[in-house]
């Protein structure tokens, strides 16, 4: 049985525009999304800003009611059976919010333990363990407002684990973290997954998603565009990328390259020392000689071929369309 089940989920927001002539406007934040997440899986939701990721997470964490469709976690309806569900899940929203800044780290965790009905016997040890895990033991009794951004974010993680949740939701958990902080967080996520917890996360960092997620869903404008493992997504792309560094870029170069068979897209970027071409294509081995032939007069500095990355997949699927 799946831990998270989302079936034909829809969510509309009604907003009024204008101050004097109030006009009702409906935003379809989630149009029709279905997916399932199995026990112990790390599931990634990718998509541009406004795609509906946060709305989806809010629905699954019982904070928001679906307009239509079904959302179940651990077999409980997210709207209607939240009483049972809330004890068994938790969430972490990225950034420095969701903490009491004027209280110490310890007080924060202790309070949330009480709100999550953690028995007194377990509470002390769990708080100590959590503080230890996120490396804040020595700062336990300092006020949160004296913490750096990374420390606050780590405390958030500890907060999200006070009830030892079976399912954990993370919305852009590494946003604004430095590389070391982000790595620490990824390690924690992997460890939690190793302990059998089911994790659903969103992120804008493709490498992170690639490294962590067992399966990835790419959504845009409230619709599901792709859903698969990272490997399958890249394979399905059936394409590779050739990157060429040039000194000279002629007007017709791009047209000529685009006209080649098996080339799907060409883009150019200029630097002060020259230009960089990115050529998306199928069957790159055949293409490279053709490309270098075409560019013989452009003074090629280097030419590299690489497999498509998750970022390429993402960009292709979203199509550089970030109008939402």
């Amino acid at each position, binding site marked *: 049985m799946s831990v998270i089940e989302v079936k034909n989920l829809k969510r509309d927001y*009604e907003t009024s525009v204008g101050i004097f002539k109030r006009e009702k406007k409906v935003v379809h934040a989630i149009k029709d999304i279905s997916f399932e997440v199995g026990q112990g899986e790390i599931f990634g939701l990718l998509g541009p800003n406004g795609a509906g990721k946060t709305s989806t997470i809010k629905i699954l964490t019982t904070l928001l009611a679906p307009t239509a469709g079904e959302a179940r976690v651990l077999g409980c309806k997210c709207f209607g059976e939240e009483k049972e569900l809330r004890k068994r899940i938790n969430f972490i929203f990225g950034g420095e919010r969701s903490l009491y800044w004027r*209280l110490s780290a310890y007080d924060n965790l202790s309070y949330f333990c009480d709100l999550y009905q953690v028995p007194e016997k377990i509470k002390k040890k769990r708080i100590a363990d959590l503080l230890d895990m996120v490396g804040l033991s020595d700062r336990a009794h300092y006020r949160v407002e004296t913490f750096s951004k990374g420390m606050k974010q780590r405390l958030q993680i500890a907060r999200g684990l006070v009830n030892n949740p079976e399912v954990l939701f993370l919305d852009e958990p590494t946003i604004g973290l430095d590389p070391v902080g982000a790595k620490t967080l990824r390690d924690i996520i992997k460890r939690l997954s190793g302990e059998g917890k089911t994790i659903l996360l969103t992120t804008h960092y493709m490498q992170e998603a690639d490294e962590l997620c067992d399966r990835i869903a790419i959504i845009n404008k409230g619709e599901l565009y792709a859903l698969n493992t990272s490997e399958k997504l890249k394979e399905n792309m059936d394409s590779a990328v050739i990157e060429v560094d040039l000194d000279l870029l002629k007007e017709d170069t791009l047209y000529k390259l685009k006209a080649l068979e098996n080339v799907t897209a060409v883009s150019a970027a200029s630097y002060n020392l020259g230009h960089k071409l990115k050529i998306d294509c199928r069957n790159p081995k055949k293409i490279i000689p053709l490309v270098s032939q075409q560019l013989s007069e452009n003074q090629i500095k280097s030419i590299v071929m690489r497999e498509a990355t998750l970022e390429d997949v993402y960009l292709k699927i979203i199509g550089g369309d970030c109008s939402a």
Partner: protein
Amino acid sequence: MRSNVKAIISSCKLQMKQSFSRSMFKFVVILSPIISAITFYFIYSDKTDETLISYVFLGTAITSMWSSISFSSAGDIDRERFMGALEVIFSAPIQFKIIMLGKVMGNTILGIASMLISLLVVVVLFGAKFTLAHPVLFSISMLLGIISFVFIALMLSGLLAISRNTRILMNCIDYPVFILCGAYFPIDVLPDYIRPLAYVLSPTYILKLARMSISGITDYSTFYSCILGLLAVTLVYLTGYLWFYRVIDVKARKEATLEVI
């Protein structure tokens, strides 16, 4: 049930710690009653001790209690939202209304502290004699009054979470309440057509009861009808509280317009 009690106590403690680290709350709880008791002492300075206690002490006490409660009920949900803590407590297994009960109780305890501060100013600093004709009835009235304050605060916090306009209004509600409930003067000075409004506010009854038990009760039927009135309005606040929080629970998630989330 036991976990609810624990959550209430925990929220109450947390709220006191939090509020107290906020400078504005220190002002509302400590400095404001002191300065305001001094100011009103000078206004009333030619009067008898009984008047000083009945108007300067009680006036300052009730207005400070009101301020600490309206300040917190108006501000707390907003502040929690601003800190992003609202969604976290909203989605905890303990019901939101239970958590808020604990928080309001925390602020009420601080409000009681400011009542005591105003008493100290009037009695210690200015040497007014604090004599009670009916100490037991006075204590009962105060106790009921405080319970009533808890529910008025809860009801307001719910109402404020539902409606943005009430939140704006809340910033200007202090003087009308002070005027209507007769904090520093008997409500007989108000015009007849306004006076009925005073009786929807529990401070009106609390002040009447306290003043009667300070100066001596001549007419017990008035006293008891004031107690009944106090109980009745408190029951209304309680109903409002439960109702508003039920609305919040559903409306917040359905419409996403309450910004509870």
